[in-house]
């Protein structure tokens, strides 16, 4: 039995991490740690008689656990993960692993030095349709990936935890909100070369970069296009999707409800309609059989159980920290360019439009 400690008992921990190993016979959360008593108590009610801690130091000193699962805000990951590795513990850490490539690499080096594992919960990689995409890519059904277009249109995050809308802490739209899509792009296209063009909008009123559009060169003719925004004054619908353009066939991914379509040639109305019908039928089936909500935790569950398995068998964890270096390189590249343009407040005059 692997004794796990959970650091950070917020919503992600309670809704995704605790349920993911509830049925596992391999591991149990024996200790919970959070400086927020309410979160701690809530998480405690979901687990079986855990020891409660309000500081990481106390948890580490207790020697109660074999590995830690870190679900704290992103800006704390590097510090907590480093201390856990140095204390001889294996580490599972929510995304983003850190707020820069340099920190991610330092964690990788530290894990090697300490002989411990570090696994990152980039859960989109283990989403059913992303797994299917990776499989058909591997089988050669799509050919070579040449262009990836990722769209993240989120809601304004000012109704969330205060650290989340402080982009100096959360890393904002790049490192926190759209990191799954950035990870998918890096997974499919590799290490980025340079930014071809970028537009970003900074809102001084809410001290946030609310919009980034960029074209990224990945070398060998491969490009990525990101359209990331959390400004609901300038867009209206909130959704996430990715289009993967390849030499053999293209793939289109939508989420919640999930959808994957592989297509080439002129858009065929019959195929288009039948894929949408499949999406509708799948959604209806999941709702009717009460699987929709359970399926949301599946990617987390796969990573958590994979991590536990890697500890048991001493193999590489499902998302080893070294596998997110390209992701962090892409995030850093975007972030560094955004800083160049974000001083320009490109405000939109709400009085300007005249609809009559």
């Amino acid at each position: 039995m692997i004794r796990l400690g959970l650091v950070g008992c917020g919503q992600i921990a309670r809704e995704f991490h605790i349920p993911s190993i509830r049925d596992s016979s391999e591991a149990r959360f024996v200790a919970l740690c959070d400086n927020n008593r309410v979160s701690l108590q809530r998480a405690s009610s979901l687990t079986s008689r855990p020891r409660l801690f309000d500081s990481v130091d106390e948890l580490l000193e207790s020697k109660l656990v074999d590995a830690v699962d870190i679900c704290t805000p992103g800006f704390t990951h590097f510090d907590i993960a480093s201390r856990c590795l140095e204390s001889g513990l294996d580490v599972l850490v929510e995304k983003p692993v850190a707020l820069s490539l340099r920190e991610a690499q330092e964690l990788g080096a530290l894990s090697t030095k300490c002989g411990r594992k570090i696994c990152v919960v980039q859960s989109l990689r283990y989403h059913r349709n992303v797994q299917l995409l990776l499989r058909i890519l591997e089988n050669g059904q799509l050919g070579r990936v040449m262009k990836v277009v990722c769209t993240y249109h989120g809601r304004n995050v000012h109704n969330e935890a205060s650290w989340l809308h402080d982009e100096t802490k959360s890393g904002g739209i790049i490192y926190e909100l759209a990191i799954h899509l950035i990870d998918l792009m890096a997974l499919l296209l590799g290490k980025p070369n340079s930014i071809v063009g970028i537009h970003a909008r900074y809102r001084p009123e809410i001290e946030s970069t609310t919009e980034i559009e960029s074209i990224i060169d990945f070398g060998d003719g491969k490009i990525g296009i990101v359209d990331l925004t959390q400004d609901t004054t300038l867009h209206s619908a909130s959704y996430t999707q990715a289009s993967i353009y390849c030499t053999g066939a293209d793939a289109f991914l939508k989420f919640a409800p999930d959808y994957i379509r592989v297509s080439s040639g002129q858009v065929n109305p019959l195929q288009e309609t039948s894929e949408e019908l499949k999406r509708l039928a799948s959604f209806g089936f999941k709702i009717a059989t009460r699987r929709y909500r359970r399926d949301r935790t599946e990617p987390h569950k796969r990573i958590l159980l994979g991590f536990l398995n890697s500890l048991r068998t001493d193999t590489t964890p499902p998302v080893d920290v070294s596998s997110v270096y390209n992701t962090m390189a892409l995030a850093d590249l975007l972030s560094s360019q955004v800083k160049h343009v974000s001083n320009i407040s490109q405000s939109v005059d709400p009085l300007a439009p005249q609809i009559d």
Partner: protein
Amino acid sequence: MDNSVFGLKASFGNVQQQMDKLILQLKVDWPVHKVAIKVNLCDYRMAESGATSDPRVVKALVLSIFRHYNNPEVAIVETDSSGTRCEALFSILGFRALEQQLGVSLVNLRKTQWQDFALPGLHFSKLKVPTPVIESDLVINHPKMKTHGKTKITIGLKNMFGCVRDKYKARYHPYLDNVIVDVNRAVRSDNIIVDGIIAMEGWGPTYGTPKKAGLLIGGRNPVSVDAFCAFLMGFDPKSVKHVALAERIGLGTTSYNLQGEFDSKSIREQRFKFDFARYHLTKRVEGQIA
């Protein structure tokens, strides 16, 4: 109780002229030195969405007030909500320009004084009410005309829910209709000026579809105004729970005395059929999604 309701056709081209007519019709006969305008800034959405008060319409309203009340002090008031900060809303949605151009003050009620108000309410026995609103000589309730996922419509009565002090108002959602009625007991609306130039239908109050209704509706009683707006939107006013409750406890009447540009015949032509969120059906699905 004055149940007169004034309905006017309006567009951005004639909004000032129509607003002047409305303010003149609704003019009160007591001295007015301080005016509070409770706008509806529910989220970070531009006025074109139909979700939030339009600064162009508010500007016309303020200019009319200056004209008809001898330049009183005007405060545009709103409260922080679960998802918003008032100061940011005022800036992003264009209200800072009104502050500069017209000299009005923009007030985040959460950061002002509040006082206790005791009442035999449907939900509260004691309620905090915003002092700057209570102490104003004239309180203008300036809602948008929208459908609402939980309360079917949101007009004047629901707009005053924004005078609840808590930032996280979602905690009252299970008792929303009762809380709306209590707030309206505690905080009066002397005039209700509904902006229905660009209204909202469907998944309101934030992410519905803009509906170009081209209407300005005014009145002195929020129950009558809400009932008339519900009728215009294609709903039975008595099927809107908070409107029916407000009538039951004597806040007003759902029957109205229609004045202005419409008579009982022509108003039928103005009647819309707003699409509305079938909240209870979708809630069952959402139970699994959320």
